[in-house]
């Protein structure tokens, strides 16, 4: 990766923004929808805009606005937000090894920006070696910044327009996010433990989809991690030279 060593910070941040583009596009209808939903519930425009700017948590913001609309107490709103966002603890645990050498101020921003999409876009780049400990956080910050701008701009547009374009949520632009996640998952599937992980997480997520507050998602994710781990441990004890190393030798993005 000689060429990467000559890039400056801005160019690394641009890489982060570019790899996030499909998901940013997929996030646009969500931001518009959040803004218009908040104003249709009669909430102050500033409230919705402040929530996107300060909390910055897609699905939790939808859940919170829904709870406010039914006059739920504040402690219910806050504790539900906690449960909805608990999956980010798994991301953080996985990222610890890539941030521990960084100054606290950088970690602070990275923590604030640790959303599904940025983790999904940047984490695999460490695995395939297209970023390292000198460049990874710059790419990460570029991805974060691109998402943050998109999320706040679309929230404001959604608030201002109410129902900007009728039926936009029916278009299916969110499918761009689904396709991107599939593009991230499939390179891992060269090793059988990742198949066990995917299949058990997938089946659980459907079976548990009736649970409230993203709990089904959280439990399914844990089931998938445990299934993958067990398959890895038992697979490699019966066949010692077939263990996975966490690096996916996928193609260059």
């Amino acid at each position: 990766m000689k060429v990467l060593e000559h890039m400056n910070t801005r160019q690394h941040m641009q890489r982060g923004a570019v790899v996030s583009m499909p998901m940013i596009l997929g996030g646009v209808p969500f931001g518009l929808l959040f803004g218009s939903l908040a104003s249709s519930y009669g909430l102050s425009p500033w409230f919705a805009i402040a929530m996107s700017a300060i909390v910055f948590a897609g699905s939790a913001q939808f859940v919170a606005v829904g709870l406010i609309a039914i006059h739920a107490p504040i402690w219910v709103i806050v504790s539900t937000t906690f449960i909805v966002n608990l999956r980010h603890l798994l991301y953080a645990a996985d990222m610890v090894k890539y941030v521990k050498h960084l100054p606290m101020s950088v970690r602070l921003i990275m923590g604030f920006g640790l959303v599904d999409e940025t983790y999904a876009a940047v984490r695999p780049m460490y695995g395939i070696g297209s970023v390292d400990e000198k460049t990874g956080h710059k790419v990460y910050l570029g991805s974060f910044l691109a998402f943050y701008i998109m999320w706040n701009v679309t929230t404001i547009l959604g608030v201002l327009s109410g129902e900007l374009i009728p039926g936009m949520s029916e278009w299916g632009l969110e499918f761009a996010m689904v396709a991107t996640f599939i593009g991230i998952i499939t390179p891992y599937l060269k090793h059988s433990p990742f198949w066990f992980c995917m299949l058990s997480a997938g089946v659980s997520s459907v079976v548990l989809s009736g649970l409230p507050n993203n709990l089904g998602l959280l439990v399914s994710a844990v089931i998938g991690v445990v299934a993958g781990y067990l398959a890895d441990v038992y697979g490699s004890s019966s066949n010692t030279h077939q263990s996975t190393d966490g690096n996916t030798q996928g193609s260059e993005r």
Partner: protein
Amino acid sequence: MSLLDSVLIIFGMFVVTFGVRFVLFARAHKVVMPVFVERALKFVPVAVLTAIIIPMIFMTDNQMNVSISNPWLIGGLAAFVIGIWRQHQLLTIFVGVVVFFIAKYMILLLL
């Protein structure tokens, strides 16, 4: 809703959201992950991303919908097959999205 309520809600949501994301980063230089934990954590991307998208693909209005009139399923399958076959992320996204929209509008035309 009073201004105080608004401030408390946003402040409370910020504290728990940022807290969950930052607590391990704050102690990252001191945290030593046991080997078995690291070995398990490498499954996090596949596990969480799968758990997010599978209900979106297979369910319509909280009901299982495994049929050719479900464009999410058709597009998802197309992306998955291309992803496994070619291992090229942009191609996977492109084919998935194109197949999804073709399926969506074919279904609209036929029904």
